[in-house]
């Protein structure tokens, strides 16, 4: 069983506790207007032209975005990072794109990671079936969960999908055991008006459980460079 991954990031320090390795899985059912990882949207391998410079000369070559990894390969990569993961009490994070699009592979690899004793995290939009989430919950220590907008209409307008199951899954996961960290991308003109922020706050408070560990506000500027603010 293999998963299509478009990026592997080591010394990943913003995707869960400690020093982690984050695997970015290719394919996403959303099409958020502010997406700064567009190469993660299509679930297929893609060719891009990579331009590189040597002095005044420019060279191009085609590169494939997206590579298939077997579970074994994932574990090998993690093992090589063990000194840092152990020292920092870090672990592995599956992000993307939307990792739940490859949920069968995700389940396999999470199981294997847990068997090896790794702390596991899944960074998800919440847009998948609750059954899918239920199957991976026993092997996931932490969910990094996006909450973008409480209004379904607005949500569809800016991401292409409804938020109904996203919010349902959120409540379900909060009650099921794993830790949860919410991420709210703050997009000017979309979800940053005072009224919405207040409702968000109320929503979070009313649904809160001991599993909720942190809320990250990600103010998005033009280029998608993010600055994390902690508010809890």
């Amino acid at each position: 069983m293999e998963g299509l991954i478009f990026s592997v990031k080591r010394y990943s320090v913003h995707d869960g506790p400690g020093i982690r390795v984050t695997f970015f899985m290719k394919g996403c059912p959303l099409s958020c207007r502010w997406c700064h990882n567009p190469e993660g949207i299509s679930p297929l391998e893609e060719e891009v032209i990579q331009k590189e410079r040597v002095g005044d000369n420019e060279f191009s070559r085609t590169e494939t975005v997206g590579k298939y990894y077997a579970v074994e390969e994932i574990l090998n990569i993690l093992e090589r990072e063990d000194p840092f993961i152990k020292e920092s009490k870090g672990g592995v994070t599956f992000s993307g794109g939307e990792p739940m699009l490859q949920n069968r592979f995700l389940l396999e690899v999470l199981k294997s990671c847990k068997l090896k004793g790794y702390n596991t995290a899944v960074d998800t939009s919440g847009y998948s079936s609750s059954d899918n989430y239920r199957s991976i919950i026993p092997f996931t220590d932490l969910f990094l969960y996006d909450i973008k907008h409480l209004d379904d209409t607005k949500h569809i307008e800016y991401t292409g999908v409804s938020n109904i199951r996203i919010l349902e899954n959120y409540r379900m996961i909060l009650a099921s055991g794993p830790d949860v960290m919410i991420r709210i991308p703050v997009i000017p003109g979309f979800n940053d008006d005072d009224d919405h922020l207040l409702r968000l706050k109320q929503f979070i408070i009313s649904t809160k459980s001991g599993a909720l560990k942190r809320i990250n506000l990600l103010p998005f500027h033009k280029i998608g460079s993010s600055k994390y603010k902690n508010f809890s």
Partner: protein
Amino acid sequence: MKRAKAFEYLLRNKKICINEGELIVGERGPAPKETPTYPEISLHSLQDLEILNSREKVYFKVDEEVKNIYENEIIPYWKGKSNRDRIMGMMTPEWIRAYNAGIFTEFQEQRAPGHTVLGCRMFKTGFVKLKEEIQESVSGLDFYYDNQALEKFEELKAMNIACDAIIMFANRHADELDRLSEKEKNPSRKRELAAMAKVCRRVPAYAPETVHEMLQHYWFIHVGVISELNPWDSFNPGRLDQHLYPVYKKEMEADLLSTEELDDLLGCFWVKFNNHPSPPKIGVTASESNTYTDFCLINLGGVKPDGTDAVNDMSYILLDVIKEMRILQPGSMIQVSRKSPDRFIHKALDIIKTGFGQPSCFNTEAIIQELLRQGKNITDARNGGASGCVETGAFGTEAYWLSGYFNLPKVLELTLNNGFDKRTNQQVGLKSGYAKDFGTFEELVEAFRLQVKYLIDIKIRGNNVIEKIFANWLPVPFLSLLVGDCIPNGKDYNAGGSRYNTTYIQGVGLGSITDMLTSIRYNIYDNHKFSWAEFSIALDSDYKGFEQMQYELIYNTPKYGNDDDYADQQALTVFEIYYDAVNGRPNARGGNHRINMLPTTSHVYFGSVTGATPDGRKAYKPLSEGISPSQGVDKQGPTSVIKSASKIDHLRTGGTLLNQKFTPQFFEDEESYNHLTSLIRSYFSLDGHHIQFNVVNAETLKEAQKHPELYRDLIVRVAGYSDYFNDLGEDLQNEIIARTEQGVSSWN
């Protein structure tokens, strides 16, 4: 005896300089930032003086009076008689060819060896006591059976003169301070000067009992060492937090010292280091160490002689001083042991994140194991640390001389060309064949191994002669007082009187040569992408007309620094070859040669004499520094760099240097401090020796190049030391900019 008397003469006649408002006294020259020259070591010509005066970087103003004295007195007397002349006159033609080709440098051609640090004994001992010890040693001389007895007697006599000289020097300061105190109108300064005079009458004759006394005691010793000769790495108080803590604690508990007074004393002490530039360097010595800094590296933390955590209140106080003073000298580092608290590391990160370039981070457990492997006892090992850039030493008991840098990539260049150096048009190496003659990669590596051995033999032969030259002509009776066991041995520091005597040859360019060998193996032998014929032409043409090939070599060839075993394998190959050639070879002082891997600025000089190389590097560009990856090729982040750097066996060296560039974003909050602390501890758990962080945007550096006048305070980490960015040559500036910035964009 002559040297001792010269020392005494110097200290008797040196201008006493008391600067306004200072609390600790004693200057290298007649005023701050002034430095003497040492014509007996190396004679500057009038042309040299002109170069010093007018060169853009690391310049020294030379006034007419100095030029006249040089022209009329110094040059006529010393011409042909300086130690440098002696050294060069006794080197073999092979050595001279290799030296001129840039295979290695010679540390002792313009400076005395030095390379030692004051240990705990001398912080608790005055020179009056040393005179007693000398007397004891003299009484113990056996003129019946010891055929060295007379030499020892002479040496001990000289040491005795040196003791009197330093006490006299301190008293001269005391006299001047009393005189100034008399004249002083301001009552508080008047009291201060009188107190300072009192301190100067007590130390260094007697053991210091207060913080003020200890700092002044050390400083007189320091000025003594750098006046006697111009040793490398000036001198160094070593484990300063350990030495100061007992007297500090006593004074505070007795309410005799306020925090304000302590602050003032330490600040003044810091200024003393910053006042002294290293003595002027010319030519190769200037290129390999292109800086004003004289490499004093204060150690904080580590473990105590009994092995327990040594971090104390003074460690934190000194970190505050470093942060507040923010001046170029002294350098500083933290010794991180498994037992050091995270809080200690975090406090250092507070300073590192401001981009100051210090303190750097060292691995106590690695240092101790390195010293134990070399045969030191456990107490001496635990009392040790690192000095200069990253060199490991047993403080107070070891003379660990650096003898010169060794240009590993250049040796590979020779290996491809039958040992012939095209730049100097000389047969410098062995005739071990041409590139095209090597049918397999292993044959090439074997030829490289033979070349390394041949050239190291030349270097070591030279070292052993040069060490004897210093022993015979330039003994250092004053320095010998300070390092155990010269007094009981009756033997000079430069003749091997210390308990431990080590000689280092510093290997340069590990990242570069690893990439070069990997490239050859990958592109020529394993994948047959190029033939030696086209490759050789490409190298000779500096890749002009071979841009596609250069692109392949840079972008499509495995590189060191990415935790890629295929590439990193060659680092191990080179390491073992270098280690085998050097380690354990006897020196001329009863000790051994060892390896370490640091460049100071020699990676720029060595690059400037090396043509285009198989890793895609253009001719005469800088080489990689320390054991860091070649500039810009590490694309997998800091954990991969650390994994690559950990593969060589640090514990069999006397120090390695790893530089990592971070943008300030990596230091933004408490959590990121935890991550960086984990990064450091992980590297150290893999036996890494040292890591330092350069925190600054590439944008900022580029701006500083364009508008140096706006960035006069910009200090960056070079290679084991920090320096003003503006003082660096343009090549080195560009090299630092190119060093991979571990920003989010570069490896996300």
